[in-house]
C-alpha cells in the first residue's frame, strides 16, 4: 500500500533533494526519514524542525490571515499555514504541513541543494506529494 516510505522515495526524485523526513511537530518525532540530514542525525533534525513548524503553526498572525482568505462556509484548516521555507547559502529547507481528517500535527521536511534544487518547483511538488500521502 502507498504510504510514508513511498512518499519519501518520490520526494527524493526531486532535483537537488538531499534528504527528507515525515515529522510530528507536537512531539518532534520522525515518523519516516530518507537520505541525508544536516548533522547526520535524523532524530535530532526532526526535533529542531518540529520546533520551527510549531512556532509557525501556532502564531496568531498566520492563523488570522488564513481565516480571512478561507471560504466562509468552510472550516479553516487546523494550522492555517501551508509551508515554511528556510534558505541558507548552501541549501533550502521546505516544511510542508500535511492536512489529515483525523487529528494530527504532521509535516514533511525536504532538504535541497542550493545549486541543484529549484525552490519553486520543489514547493509545488512537495505540496502535491504531501496531499497524495493522505489521499491516495
Amino acid at each position, binding site marked *: *500500500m502507498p*504510504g510514508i516510505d*513511498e512518499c519519501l522515495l518520490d520526494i527524493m526524485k526531486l532535483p537537488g533533494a538531499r534528504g527528507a523526513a515525515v515529522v510530528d511537530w*507536537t512531539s*518532534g518525532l520522525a515518523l519516516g526519514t530518507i537520505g541525508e540530514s544536516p548533522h547526520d542525525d535524523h*532524530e535530532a533534525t526532526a526535533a529542531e524542525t518540529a520546533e520551527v513548524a510549531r512556532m509557525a503553526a501556532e502564531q496568531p498572525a498566520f492563523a488570522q490571515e488564513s481565516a480571512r482568505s478561507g471560504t466562509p462556509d468552510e472550516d479553516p484548516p487546523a494550522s492555517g499555514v501551508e509551508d515554511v521555507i528556510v534558505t541558507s547559502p548552501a541549501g533550502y529547507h521546505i516544511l510542508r504541513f500535511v492536512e*489529515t*481528517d*483525523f487529528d494530527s500535527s504532521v509535516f514533511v521536511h525536504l532538504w535541497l541543494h542550493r545549486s541543484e534544487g529549484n525552490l519553486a518547483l520543489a514547493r509545488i511538488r512537495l505540496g502535491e506529494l504531501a496531499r497524495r500521502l493522505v489521499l*491516495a
Partner: protein
Amino acid sequence: MRPPASPAPTAPLPAVSPMLRRLAEERATGALMRESGTLYLADGQVVHAESPATPGIDVLLTAGGTLARAGWWEAVAAAGARQRVAAYLVDSGRVPGGALELCHLGALYDAAFFALAPTSTPARFRYGVSHWIGPVHPVAAGSVERETLRRRALLDRIWPDATVDTAPLVRLPDAAAPPLTPRRRAVLAAVDGSRSAAEIARGLGRSAFHTLVDVRRLAAAGALDAVRSCGRPDDGSSGPRAGAPVLPEVTPDPDIALLRRLRDALEVL
C-alpha cells in the same frame, strides 16, 4: 547548536524497559504486558501498542470522520479473525494507506509512552501473541525507547509538574492569560473540574500525549491546574503530592494564582 535534551551519542541511555531491550535482541514475537499498557512485538520490532490512557486508532479515525463507526466494525468483522484489519481498511478503500500509517504510528508511540511509564509491577511477556490490527509500519524497539525518554524530557521542559497529567483539571481565572491557539482552546473548553487529560483526549479524538503537551502549556500559562484533593482519601489518581499543603482550588486574585504556580513549580524541581 543541539537542544540540551539530546544526549551525547556515547552516553548510554537509561533503559526504559530492560525486558523490551532483551526481547528486541532475541527478535521475539508476542505481547509485552506492563501495568499501564501493552506493546506487541514481531521479530523484535514494535508493531502495535495499546494503553488505557490513550485513545485507540478506532477512536482517532472515527472522531475526525476519516471512517464511520460502522465502517470500523465492518472491517473488524471481516478481517479481525485473520488479523488483517489495517490492510482491509486500506484495500477496501475506507482509509488511504498513508493516512492509516500516520494515524497508526501516532497511536503506537502514544500508547507506548504510557505503557513504558515507570512502574513497580513486573512486566509479563506472552510469546507468539499477535494483534488483530495486523501489519502496518513496524518500528525498532530502540526508537520507541528513545522517543519515550525524549517525550518525558519535553513535558518537563514545558512545565515540570506532572500532577496535571493524571488529576482532574480545573480552569483558573486569569485575565492576563495569553491568547490561545485553537487546539489549546479546545482542550481548555473541555476542562470542567472532573475530567483528566486522558478523558479530554478521548473526547476530542486526539493523542493523549499531544493533549498532555497542551495541558502542560496551559498549566505553564496559568490557565488550568490539577484539582488538589482536600484530605479526601486517595481516589486512585495516585498523586505523588500526598503531603503537599492544600489551597483553595480557584483563587480569584491573579497574584496569588501566580505565586501558587511558582511554588508548585519550585516544589517539583
